[in-house]
């Protein structure tokens, strides 16, 4: 039977990671970075996470030099990174890893795991599982031409996995012919970029069919795992709001004693409780290769995106004026939550997928009125 709890290993991983993030990436540091440094990623933190905790290769099989853990652990990592809105390219690296696992390219995977090289899948962050992405063109089987917009985590990558007309290619991100241009992102803690390939040298690692499968697998994993990040975001928002309302006094009493606010926070708690179960289910399906994975991933994004947005909106609202300022971290979570709602396709698209998979057909458009 599917296991929706966190097991002891997962709880230990969570505790380690949370402690490291508390020390090395408090929200004040994230805010300072967002507010104006040149470097959008926290490279020191990323080095620690990949070096000390081995997160970069968490999902790479042990025989290829990876940590050999599963997607359940990856999900716990994402939950904690979401809770800290940590500016590290972890999600992008998981996505690329999942694509490579489907391509069966053990050399490249092994290289990634042992050399800790950054890698990203060059597709728009909004690309949804099962929807064809616009491929770049190929010249003579060895050079790429074209543009991919709004890519997540590619700014930090050494290697790019690029869906092209006749298969999946790997290119050096800093090679001549590759121009990576930062984008002003709604969520500045997850930098996005546009990539222009103009005769960029590249090597083909999979044919068209394997590419389609690898993309679907990667984007499905992205949708399934992002749900855990969303749970982390939502939980931080709830915890922080509860903490604030316990202390803040108005009208001669703690604001948290006002029943209307209590009931709204109780509702957020119920939503998070459900979102966590959904996210755990998605991670467990992914980890065990359950045939329900496609549904679980669609369910995850049909449900958890709105929960994170709602929690973040309530966090801003119930902090009152202070929550509307740049100096308070609430907006980092609001922007993360709202951006994540667009990642891997909107909830609306995932609901269509759910409907297809569970046989709830849309009306056939015949009658009007």
């Amino acid at each position: 039977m599917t296991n929706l709890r966190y097991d002891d290993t997962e709880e230990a991983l969570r505790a380690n990671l949370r402690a490291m993030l508390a020390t090395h990436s408090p929200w004040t540091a994230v805010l300072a970075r967002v507010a104006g440094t040149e470097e959008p990623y926290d490279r020191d933190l990323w080095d620690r996470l990949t070096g000390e905790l081995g997160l970069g290769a968490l999902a790479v099989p042990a025989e290829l030099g990876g940590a050999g853990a599963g997607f359940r652990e990856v999900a716990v990592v994402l939950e904690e990174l979401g809770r800290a809105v940590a500016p590290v390219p972890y999600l992008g690296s998981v996505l690329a890893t999942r694509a490579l696992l489907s391509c069966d390219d053990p050399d490249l995977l092994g290289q990634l795991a042992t050399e800790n090289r950054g890698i990203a899948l060059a597709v728009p962050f909004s690309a949804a599982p099962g929807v064809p992405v616009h491929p770049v063109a190929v010249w003579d089987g060895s050079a790429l031409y074209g543009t991919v917009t709004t890519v997540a985590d590619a700014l930090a990558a050494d290697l790019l996995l690029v869906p092209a007309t006749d298969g999946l290619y790997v290119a050096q991100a800093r090679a001549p012919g590759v121009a990576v241009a930062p984008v002003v992102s709604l969520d500045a803690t997850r930098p996005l970029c546009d990539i222009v390939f103009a005769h960029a040298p590249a090597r083909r690692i999979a044919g068209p069919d394997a590419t389609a499968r690898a993309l679907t697998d990667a984007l499905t994993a992205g949708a399934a795992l992002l749900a855990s990040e969303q749970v982390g975001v939502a939980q931080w928002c709830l915890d922080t709001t509860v903490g604030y309302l316990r202390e803040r006094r108005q009208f001669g009493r703690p604001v948290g004693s006002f029943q209307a606010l209590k009931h709204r926070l109780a509702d957020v708690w119920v939503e998070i409780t459900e979102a966590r179960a959904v996210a755990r289910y998605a991670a467990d399906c992914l980890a065990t290769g359950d045939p329900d994975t496609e549904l679980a991933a669609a369910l995850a994004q049909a449900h958890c995106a709105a929960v994170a947005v709602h929690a973040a909106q309530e966090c801003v609202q119930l902090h009152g004026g202070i929550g509307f300022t740049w100096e308070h971290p609430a907006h980092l979570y609001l922007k993360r939550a709202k951006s994540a709602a667009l990642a891997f396709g909107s909830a609306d698209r995932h609901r269509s997928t759910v409907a297809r998979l569970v046989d709830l057909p849309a009306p056939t458009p015949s009658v009007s009125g």
Partner: protein
Amino acid sequence: MSTDPGDRLPGLVAEFLRRHDPAGDRLGFLRARFDAGLAWVHYPVGSGGLAAPRHLQPLVDDEFARVGAPDNRPRRNGIGLGMVAPTLLRHGTTAQRDRLLRPLWTGEDIWCQLFSEPDAGSDLAGLTTRAVRDGGDWVVNGQKVWTSLAHRARWGILLARTATDVGKHQGITCFVCDMTAPGVQVRPLRQLTGEAEFNEVFLTDVRLPDDLRLGGVGEGWRVARTTLMNERVAIGGAPAPREGGLIGLVARTWRDRPELRTAGRHDELVRLWVRAEAARLAALRLRQQLATGEPGPEGSAVKLAFAELAQRISGFEVELLGEAGLRHDDWTMRRPAETDLLTRTATHRYLRARGNSIEGGSSEILRNIIAERVLGLPVEPRSDR
């Protein structure tokens, strides 16, 4: 032989079945099953169990079902099995457990719950039913309401005020009320569906011997909490397969009747399906977490979501049906044996579901509990305690 109870149980069931004919005397079979500790395996030995982990129970039930053994008709005695039994287990004396648990489990004794009062409402602790000591007895006077099964019940679990000079929560004591005692009068209470599932119970000079007191004098509120937390889990938390509840009914209508489909309704239906599945997974996750422990305030979330979903889904169903949604089946006053949501009209489901957020702890009370006991938000300023 393994000492893991999961390994031992199938053997115990097989052994039991060798000795007792499932096709024989029904009551005898059930009593024997209780005595063998195969009733609720997580209960102590002697109280129908084997002190085994709670999650092994389905394994035992499945095995008995497989051979066509009679069951204890659990839906006929939901209050007894879901709420009273855990309360007796935790707060009852050995004598009370020995006397009451077996006939409860076999279904010989139906139980009801005598907590709610007309004037107290959601403020359960504001109850005014009095129990006054008179020698070795207690004499009870007062009125209870929303008592399902009172007209069939042998016993009721009763809260009454035994002191008025202390805080309102401190003055309450819990009793087992003999529903056959003189002075107990049960009247049907008709609800907006036209049916009367519930009753009003009038208690006039009802004498209860002190050995029917459950827990200490003045400790009734603590006893009631066990009952109530189990109630919420019982109401919301039954393990259901995907599409096992109302959502499955609507989904089947959708699949069977293409002429009802519109784009707007499609979006609404899929949203409801997603929410129902999320709630189902949350209930499943809670059940996995509680596999060994007792229900805490988290169970409130499951009951809260269950009520909201039942209301939204049944409301959607009525609108989906269009013209047929204007028509009801029957307003006749009836006394149904159990809440029947699946075989009557959508309009009945819609109306009956309104009660889901009132009965067994209103959704407002559950939100208070979550806010205060789970989130730790401050209580409201109160003048009554």
